């Protein structure tokens, strides 16, 4: 099976600081891949590169057979025009650590926005789709609420609905539970677990090791801008081969056992 997302030899630096030093990673359709690692290891930057929110200096990212954000012109890598990049981003869904809902719109409008303006659906059709997703994340009674009226967990569930409603080929989750109170984490993870079960391709940056172990098909451990180790969760998380991963996992010993 051909990978839906293909990252090859990705390099990025912020000034002299090398954040990504040759990342190659394939994600197959329907797969859930978890990126784990200490903060500063480049996970979030990698995710942002995939959605063309960051430039990078070398390598390539392809969704299906289309390169994201850039094209090769006579052997030179050139940034795609803004409108093309926007269309590519519509094929990817992203959920952020800080929810980033649009504060001036109701829950319904947040979710329907992309359906109306990017996918050019009729208002009625968009609201129907948005509503069904809002119901699926368990917030049918909050349709007319504004984000500031919701708890963090509820906001994050709306953010997931907003992304998934566009039927993206790949969903990107960037530490989506890190800003939440502990008692609200569960409701968000439950929504993600349902998504994974429904066959949604997902690339997930997370520190929730229990969740990663249960839901991910493959775990990728990053450190210092490179992939150190990867494989099925029961191997990578339970029998880490490298010392770096062993050290990282000692923090989660209580959870993983």
């Amino acid at each position: 099976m051909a990978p839906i997302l293909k990252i090859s030899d990705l390099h990025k630096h912020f000034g002299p600081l090398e954040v990504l030093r040759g990342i190659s990673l394939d994600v197959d359709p329907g797969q859930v891949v978890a990126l784990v690692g200490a903060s500063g290891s480049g996970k979030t930057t990698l995710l942002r590169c995939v959605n063309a929110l960051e430039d990078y200096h070398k390598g390539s990212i392809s969704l299906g057979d289309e390169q994201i954000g850039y094209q090769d012109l006579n052997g030179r890598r050139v940034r795609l025009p803004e409108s093309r990049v926007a269309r590519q981003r519509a094929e990817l869904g992203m959920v952020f650590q800080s929810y980033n809902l649009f504060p001036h719109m109701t829950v319904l409008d947040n979710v329907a926005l992309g359906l109306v303006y990017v996918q050019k659906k009729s208002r009625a059709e968009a609201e129907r789709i948005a509503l069904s997703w809002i119901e699926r994340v368990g917030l049918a009674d909050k349709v007319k609420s504004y984000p500031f009226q919701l708890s963090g967990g509820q906001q994050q569930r709306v953010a997931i609905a907003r992304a998934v409603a566009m039927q993206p080929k790949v969903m990107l989750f960037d530490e989506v539970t890190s800003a939440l109170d502990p008692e609200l984490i569960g409701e968000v993870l439950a929504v993600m677990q349902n998504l994974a079960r429904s066959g949604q391709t997902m690339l997930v940056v997370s520190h929730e090791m229990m969740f990663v172990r249960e839901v991910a098909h493959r775990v990728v451990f990053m450190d210092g801008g490179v992939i150190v180790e990867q494989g099925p969760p029961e191997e990578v998380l339970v029998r880490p081969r490298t010392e770096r991963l062993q050290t990282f996992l000692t923090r989660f010993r209580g959870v993983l056992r």
Partner: protein
Amino acid sequence: MSFALPQLLRGLGVTLEIGAIVVTAGSLAGFVVGLSLLYGGFAVRLAARLYVDTIRGLPVLVLIFVIYFALPAFGLRFSAFQAGITALSIFATAHIAEIVRGGIDSIPRAQMDAAKAVGLTFWQRLHLVILPQAVRRMVPSWVNVAVEIVKGSALLSLLGIIDLLLAMQNVVGVTFSPLPFYGLTAFLYFAVNFTISRIGGLMERRFAYLKY
């Protein structure tokens, strides 16, 4: 009084006309310059920055005199009204550009990221996500500029434009009773500016549900 009032009202009309034209022109041009400050290429950004900083550093009166008295030497001749409108508009544009830039800049970058992630194009992101939030933050400063313009329009009486101020001076010159007419004129300026402030207050309340 039957002689004075029509004159004063005609002057008030001129002042309101100047204010309306300048605030409209300054808002439109200021919006474009403000966007240039944020999203222009290097050359555009530099030009916009030079314009804004230069104009904001000059007294309006200097600007008015340069355009009315100095430009004719270079073959650019304006009527007093055109010169006055142009000078005030150039002034308003610079100030509103900075307000637009600041307002947009104050919206968290994450909002732009989220709008990108939804797949919106640049202009959609601006008009659907960023501006509805930024405009509310621009309103108080925008009201300040509008009020400054109405007050600054009195300077155009120096070019012989019969606005509210000059109309009052004419009336006083004939009636020799300064106090009531100074008082009335001051009240009219105040009434105009108070109305602008109230409209600003209403606009702020209109967007008050925005919270972070």
